[in-house]
Each structure stands twice: as C-alpha cells, then as structure tokens.
C-alpha cells in the first residue's frame, strides 16, 4: 500500500493534467515531456506546455478481461488519442452512450480511475470523453 501511494503521488502531475513540453526551436510538442528534442538535439529549446486535452481517437479497443481494480466497470474502452497539438497519448475512453470510432472527437476530463478497496487510496486520472 505504502509503495503504491508514493508511486502514485509522484505521478499526480501527469495523471491529473496533460502537461508536456514544446521545442521552441522546431515547434514539436511532446507528451510526456522529453529532456531533449528529437529533431534538434543539442539545439533543443524545450519549455513546459499545457495541452488542451482535445483530440481524436487514433485507435481503440474494448477491455473485457480487466485487472481486479476495474472489474466493476468492464467492459470498458481504452485507446490512443491523437491530441490536437500533435502527441499521441493512451487513455480510457468514456463513450457516454456513443460508440468509439477512429477519428471521433474527444475531450479530456478528470475522473476516478479506481479505488483501493473501501479504505485505501482513490486514484484519479484524466480520461477522454467522446464529444
């Protein structure tokens, strides 16, 4: 439990928000943030960039055999989202009565990922809702 808590806490920044970086030299946007721009190497000029969370579904699949923490919500959809700023990111897709399809517009929302039983920590994460 302690190990999970500390590990989760370190990642709150990238679980709650899509904060990547952008190379001011070539304009490439990265998520997760990179230390060196793959185009510019030693000429990298990387600055933090908050991504809008809007994008389209690049690919998706339905999980029917879930890990224990997700058994109550299965089947559920996960996929790769092509963000409007360029990077691709994995995430849960909330269909909200619609069907996931490649190219569908999505928007990031703040949701509960899972809770560690009735007494453990609650884990929150961004997910993507079909618009």
């Amino acid at each position, binding site marked *: 439990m302690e190990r999970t808590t500390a590990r989760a806490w370190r990642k709150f920044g990238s679980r709650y*928000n899509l*904060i990547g970086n952008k190379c001011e030299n070539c304009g490439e946007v990265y998520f997760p943030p990179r230390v060196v721009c793959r185009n510019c190497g030693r000429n990298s000029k990387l600055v933090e960039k*908050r991504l809008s969370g809007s994008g389209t579904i690049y690919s998706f699949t339905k999980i029917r055999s879930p890990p224990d923490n997700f058994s*109550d919500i299965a089947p559920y959809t996960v996929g790769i989202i092509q963000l409007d700023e360029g990077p691709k990111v994995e995430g849960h897709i909330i269909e909200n*009565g619609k069907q996931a399809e490649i190219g569908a517009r999505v928007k990031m929302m703040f949701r*509960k990922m899972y809770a560690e039983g009735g007494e453990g920590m609650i884990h929150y994460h961004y997910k993507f809702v079909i618009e």
Partner: protein
Amino acid sequence: MTVGIVGYGAYVPSFRIKVEEIARVWHTDPASIREGLNVMEKAVPDADEDAATIAVEAARRALTSAGISGDKIEAIYVGSESHPYAVKPTATIVAKAISSNPRLMAADLEFACKAGTAGIQILLGFAKSGMIRYGMSIGADTSQGRPGDALEYTTGAGGAAYIIGNAKSEVIAEITNTASYTTDTPDFWRRDGAEFPSHSGRFTGEPAYFKHVVGATELILKDTGMRPSDFAYAVFHQPNGKFPINVAKQLGFEMKQIEQGLLVPLIGNTYSGSSLLGLAAVLDVAKPGDKVLVTSFGSGAGSDSFVLEIKEPIEKKRARTVPVRQMISAGKIYVDYAMYLKNKGFIVK
C-alpha cells in the same frame, strides 16, 4: 474596492434517472411524486464520478471563464456532503488538478447544502481585506439518498465553482452584501460513518428550510433597504421544486424572477451545488446593472444570503463557457434503476 465573482464554472453529469423509473421499483405513483416535488428527473454520477471529479470540472471551467491560470488562486474551499475521503481534503485534489501554487489556503467545508456559499463568505473577507487577489469556492455533491426513501427522488449530482476577486475591471458580479441566519435545528443529518442521511420528514419544511431562508433573506433586505421588486433574479436553495417557489411567494418575489435559476426539476437537488448552480444559470443571462438575490440553505440549519450587482465584464467572460441550461439539456443519458445503483456503488460484484 469592488469585490465579487470574477469567474464561474458549472458541471452536471450526463446521466439521468426519471422519477418514473424510481417509482416503478418502489411501486409508488410517479405522477403524484412529480407533482408533489416538482421534479421530473435527476442527474446522477457515472461510476467514475464523485464530488472531487465534479469539483475539478467546475473549477477548470471557472478558470476558463475568469481567464486566469490555476497558479493565481490563493485559497480553495470545497463544500460538500459527499467528500470522497472522510479525512483527506477534496480541496487539495482540486488544487493539484488546476496546478495551483503550494502557497495556498485550503480546506473542505461541510454545512449540509450551504457549505459552498459559506466558502464564498470566507473568500469575501480575504478579498476585501486584500489578503488574496483570487480565491475559489466550490459546492459539489453526489447526493446520498437511502433506496426507498423519499429523498431518493430528488438527490442529484453536480457542482459549481466561483472565483472571488477584488479587481474592479475583472468583477462580473459585485457581491455588495451578505447576511446569514443560523440556529441549531436537527432537520436532517448523517452520523459519522453512516452511509445515508436521516431526516425529520415534514420538520425539514417550516422550522428548517422556510424559517432560515426567510430569516436570511429578510435580514439582507433590511440591511440593504431593498425590496423584492428591485431584483431581476432571485435564487433560493432547491431541495425540491416546490419549496423555492413557495418561499419566493412568501417573501414577495414573482415566478419570473426565480424561473431562470430553478434547475431542480431537471437535475434534482445537488446539495452543495444547488443554489450555486442556480446562480450560474442566472449569470448566463443576466445583464449589467441587474441585481440578483441568492439565499442558500443548509440543514442543521442555516442560510446565507447575498446581493449581487452584475457588471460589464460578464458579457465577455460568459461567452467562454457553455451555459448551464445548455449543458444540462445536451447529451443526456437515461439509466435504469439497476445501473443507477451500480454507478452509485450501492451494488458491487
């Protein structure tokens, strides 16, 4: 110094359950419930939504409306009856999710359905004294109602966030006055560790809701020398669709003043979100110069009353977010009673 609202945001989940569906399960008469409560359906959370996720969505929208980033917020208060943790603040989750600066005053508040307006009062003090430039108060709930209880027809989910500031050029609604009326009245409670609230039936009416809403509203009318006819809009806490209409009549307000902010027939009683969502719906349409009265109510019991004057920047700022009534009517998904129980966590594998 002009102190008031500089941004606001609202969030209501997409899922709905109709009064008919609940009545079907408990073999009650839906028509008499709809008529008796003036509630048609209520908003209910998805399985991965709770008061924290609702608070974060409302907070992010409030920042968009205000046109500021989260690191400018110097105080966050979250009022709720359904904080996901009994100990561990929702306010810190919101703070991280909006990337606020660690130099931050923060706490969770609880005063039944009025903790969000209590948070606004705290921030008014900070903003007036110059201690902060921006602070955020949120009322958000996934309201609890015991299956089969009369409350089950009305307990909804939703929330609203307000950023209070003190720069004249940024204020969209100046809060000119506030007054509260508070007594020890056991009309509704939830004991520590209890899953569902208990209430005193009809006792929640006259000695609780009406006495306190009327009490606070009369105090603020006396303080300001204003009359009900001076207000373009009024919002009263909405435990059902009848109480706010009746209390408005009792105080001398007309239906046309309260109907814009009366959301309970569509989303149910969102507890701490109730009067604040009603105010957000009013801010969506109010014109500069309009006066607005808001009176919340929290069981236990107390009411906070506010007088607001709408200011010019509202036109520009409200265009940045989706109007509350539009959000409520768009993309609704109806669930049956079994799915509602599962999403609320009442039944598990």
